[in-house]
């Protein structure tokens, strides 16, 4: 940091003011006080919180929507249909907030902490699936950067859950080729700029997709991923619809290459 060199005039004013104050307040003690369980609860505040906490807990048991097949992250070699649903909801919510098209969404499978089992989905199930406070963020990427993000996610995780594109890997672990198109099969113009929905976690450089850090014009929506999933379940139920898994087919990766990815012996 450059040192500030006051001009003589301001210095004079400054000095006189200082003398009027006749004091430069030095700190005498600073510390961080952790709020731990050793500190007892304040009775008055507990009286306010307790019934509200009970109310919040009661909402956890509220039924949201029927999911007759469940939504599963997929076992080895299977696609992560739960993740695809989350990415679809992210893209759709981002479009709603922005009021303009969002072409691509990507999240990290590691952030989805449980499957949605077949049957009634409750509020608590969505909290279990998404316990983090991650926020929906919209950024701008070029088509080339979208392809690169998909490539990175394949190399590190065998393809992170995404929405809006189809990725096909062909060839062998030693010599592989990646083709990425928009979901309708049309080619991605590397130079085009598109809106991309992701989480603040991935945009911040956490986890598997470093290209997302390059995102421009970030828009933090203030919506947690959990909240948009809760809202989506609510609106499905309102429309008397069931929660069904999206169709597979977003990543097509030959088994030998999937194994090479798991063994961390794959580059693309």
């Amino acid at each position, binding site marked *: 940091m450059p040192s500030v060199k006051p001009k003589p005039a301001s210095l004079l004013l400054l000095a006189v003011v200082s003398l009027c104050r006749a004091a430069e307040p030095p700190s005498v003690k*600073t*510390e961080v006080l952790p*709020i731990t369980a050793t500190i007892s609860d*304040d009775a008055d505040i507990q009286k306010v919180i307790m019934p*509200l906490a009970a109310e919040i807990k009661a909402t956890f048991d509220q039924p949201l929507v029927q999911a007759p097949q469940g939504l599963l992250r997929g076992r080895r070699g299977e696609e992560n249909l739960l993740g695809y649903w989350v990415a679809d909801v992210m893209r759709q919510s981002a479009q709603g907030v922005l009021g303009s098209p969002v072409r691509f969404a990507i999240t990290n499978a590691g952030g989805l902490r449980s499957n949605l089992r077949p049957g009634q989905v409750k509020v608590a199930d969505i909290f279990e699936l998404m316990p983090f406070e991650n926020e929906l963020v919209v950024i701008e990427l070029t088509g080339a950067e979208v392809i690169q993000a998909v490539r990175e996610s394949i190399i590190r995780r065998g393809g992170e859950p995404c929405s809006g594109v189809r990725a096909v890997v062909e060839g062998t672990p030693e010599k592989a080729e990646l083709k990425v198109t928009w979901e309708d099969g049309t080619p991605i113009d590397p130079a085009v700029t598109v809106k991309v929905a992701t989480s603040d976690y991935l945009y911040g450089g956490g986890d598997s997709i470093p290209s997302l850090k390059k995102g421009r014009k970030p828009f933090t929506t203030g919506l947690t991923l959990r909240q948009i999933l809760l809202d989506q379940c609510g609106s499905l139920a309102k429309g008397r619809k069931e929660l069904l898994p999206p169709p597979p087919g977003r990543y097509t990766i030959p088994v030998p290459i999937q194994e090479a990815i798991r063994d961390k012996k794959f580059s693309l």
Partner: protein
Amino acid sequence: MERRDFLASLGAATLASHLSLGAAEAPASGRITLLHTNDTHSRIEPFGPGNGNLSGLGGVSRRATLVRQLRAQLGPVLLLDAGDTFQGTPYFNRYKGRLDYQLMRMVGYDAGTLGNHDFDNGVGLLVEAMESMEKLQHKNPPFPFVNCNFDFKGAPDLAKRVRPYLVREFPGLKVGITGVGVAFAGLVAPKNHEGIGWRDPYESLRPVVQRLREVEKVDLVVVLSHLGYNLNGTAPDDLQMPGQVPGIDAVVGGHTHTFLDTPTRVPQARGETLVFQVGFGGVNLGRMDFAVAHGTLRAASGSALPLLG
């Protein structure tokens, strides 16, 4: 260093006249403890298990107990918050911030400022949350909000509730408190900050700090900042603030969820500024003590006073 040399050369006459006046009027000394939080994000209850090293920490009710104990021990205390009280738990989704602000009043906050997430439900619901806090029946007074770099012209209900600065007097010491908020672009949807403009925080702070020093004659200037600790030169932040705005003694920071063990001491044209931030979610309470001695040459030279126990 330059300042000290200049003071030495200023001449004993000027100095003496100020000192003799001061000695007759002013009390010998004053002290104050600043207690502070930032980015509490609707963490009403402690973090549950499965939250890593934050598990089991925090909770408004424990914070209230700690604050009460410290007030009893320390006497003059200001309890301050640097914004982003809203968003993060089902409590916010359900109670829209009303509960957060009401509990802050019960804990005994003296002042707060606005972070980007406090606009998450729009200006209307932010005002409603403030209003519900004002109307609460409680022995603690409603706490005020400070900000000097938002232009509230198009949002009169919020303008009424946020003042550019406030002054609090304690025995032997006057404290001026102001606040600054982060730019809305990329953080707050346009519809949620309708009618509110954002101005450069440094430019907004300069006249306010000057007024606090020269007109209000405060001894200590505190900025509640929701700019962020260190943005590496990409936008105004707390670490650069002291170099840009001389005369600030303490920055109670937020926004970047930065866990500091001690405040960062940033040199500035008039001494140094303590820049502090204590993580997020109410897991910590920050503490900064200040002591001011009136009319002593030693204090005027800017050297440190003895520690208070």
